[in-house]
């Protein structure tokens, strides 16, 4: 067998990457996990997790991340703070180009997750960090007794809107359809919360303000084409996600939205490259599904390595 620096390189340190690392470290693979920012990924920004089994009262995203990270440390998982620039998958031994060097590996697990999708409307970039936010747990408390807009209709949008009502006196939840996509229990809570006003069938077409802060947003009803301005102090955006796959080039097969396609072993179109978590083409993106993917991906990587030895 050809030599490689590692048995397995895991790209991304959210719940999927960390779990793959936990399984791989316990399988005594020669493994490295590369995380470009901070372990935990999107979960760091999750206020409260109620549907992860084993925690009857729920727990904060930050606590869950700390727990999983500690657990991986117990089995000496090597986590490196670095960025993957690209990968070369033309040979059996794959190359992973990092910001400062290139490493070779027999297998790769892609666990790079997703990022919030920007709306691409005027004011969005200009007011980022000054009233435009993608993270209620980071910025919600700045809006004590103020008025905010939340854009979206899925689980994240509704859950985070509910969180915002702890601070804001009013939350306009602006959704482009006439019904929410969020799970029913979240819908029930949103409908029952008198600080949330849902604006149906509507999109935000621009975010407006002065030099340093957001003053209002322009809202357009997509059924009537009427537009109006809504006075708000902040605007939270949860209108979809895009997969973090820029470094992959045309290495593995992606679906039409850019998510990585895999079989039931979590193997991609390339032998020895596996995928786990939100970045995968999957019907449900939850922590519990990400860690399930990751266990399978690590198990499959272990088998692949056993077979080439």
């Amino acid at each position, binding site marked *: 067998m050809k030599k490689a620096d590692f048995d397995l390189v895991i790209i991304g340190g959210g719940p999927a990457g960390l779990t793959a690392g936990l399984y791989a470290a316990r399988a005594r693979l020669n493994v490295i996990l590369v995380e470009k920012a901070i372990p935990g990924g999107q979960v760091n920004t999750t206020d409260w997790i109620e549907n992860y089994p084993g925690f009857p009262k729920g727990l904060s995203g930050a606590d869950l991340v700390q727990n999983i990270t500690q657990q991986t440390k117990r089995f000496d998982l090597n986590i490196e703070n*670095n960025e993957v620039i690209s990968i070369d998958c033309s040979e059996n031994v794959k190359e992973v180009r990092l910001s400062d060097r290139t490493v070779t590996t027999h297998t790769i697990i892609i666990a790079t997750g997703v990022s919030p999708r920007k709306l691409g409307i005027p004011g969005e970039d200009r007011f980022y960090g000054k009233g435009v936010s993608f993270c209620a747990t980071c910025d919600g408390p700045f809006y004590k007794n103020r008025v905010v807009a939340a854009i979206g209709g899925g689980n994240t949008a509704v859950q985070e809107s509910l969180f915002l009502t702890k601070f804001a006196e009013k939350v306009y939840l602006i959704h482009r359809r006439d019904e929410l996509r969020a799970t029913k229990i979240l819908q029930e809570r949103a409908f029952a919360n008198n600080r949330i006003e849902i604006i149906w069938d509507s999109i935000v077409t621009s975010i407006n303000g002065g030099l340093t802060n957001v003053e209002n947003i322009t809202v357009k009803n997509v059924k009537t084409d009427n537009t109006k301005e809504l006075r708000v102090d902040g605007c939270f955006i949860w209108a979809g996600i895009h997969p973090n796959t820029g470094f992959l080039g045309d290495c593995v097969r992606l679906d039409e939205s850019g998510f990585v396609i895999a079989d039931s072993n979590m193997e991609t179109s390339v032998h020895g490259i596996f995928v786990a978590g939100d970045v995968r083409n999957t019907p449900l993106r939850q922590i519990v599904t990400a860690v399930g993917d990751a266990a399978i991906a690590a198990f499959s990587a272990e088998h692949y390595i056993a077979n080439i030895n």
Partner: protein
Amino acid sequence: MAANILEVDDGSFDAEVLAADKPVLVDFWAPWCGPCRAIGPVIEDISASFGEQVKFVKFNVDDNPATPAKYGIRSIPTLIFFKQGSVVEQIIGIVAKAKLEEIINKIL
């Protein structure tokens, strides 16, 4: 908290940050902010290697609203680099250690 990170509030900000004799990195944070907790260890790590040249400061925005309002901070974690009392760089959100080191090296 690491010994070389100073806790500053609205009252001591001018003296400790604006009038400091070397560049200052201020980490605006709050106890309720998950990502702030995640970035804390990174700042501690970096303060160990740059502690001589840079002053590292933590600022709790929850207890001290005046300074964050003055700098228009509506999002945390926000890191601001001050040099001789002026803002030279501002980073919003989680940032990798390597990126922070790069910025510090540029400023020094």
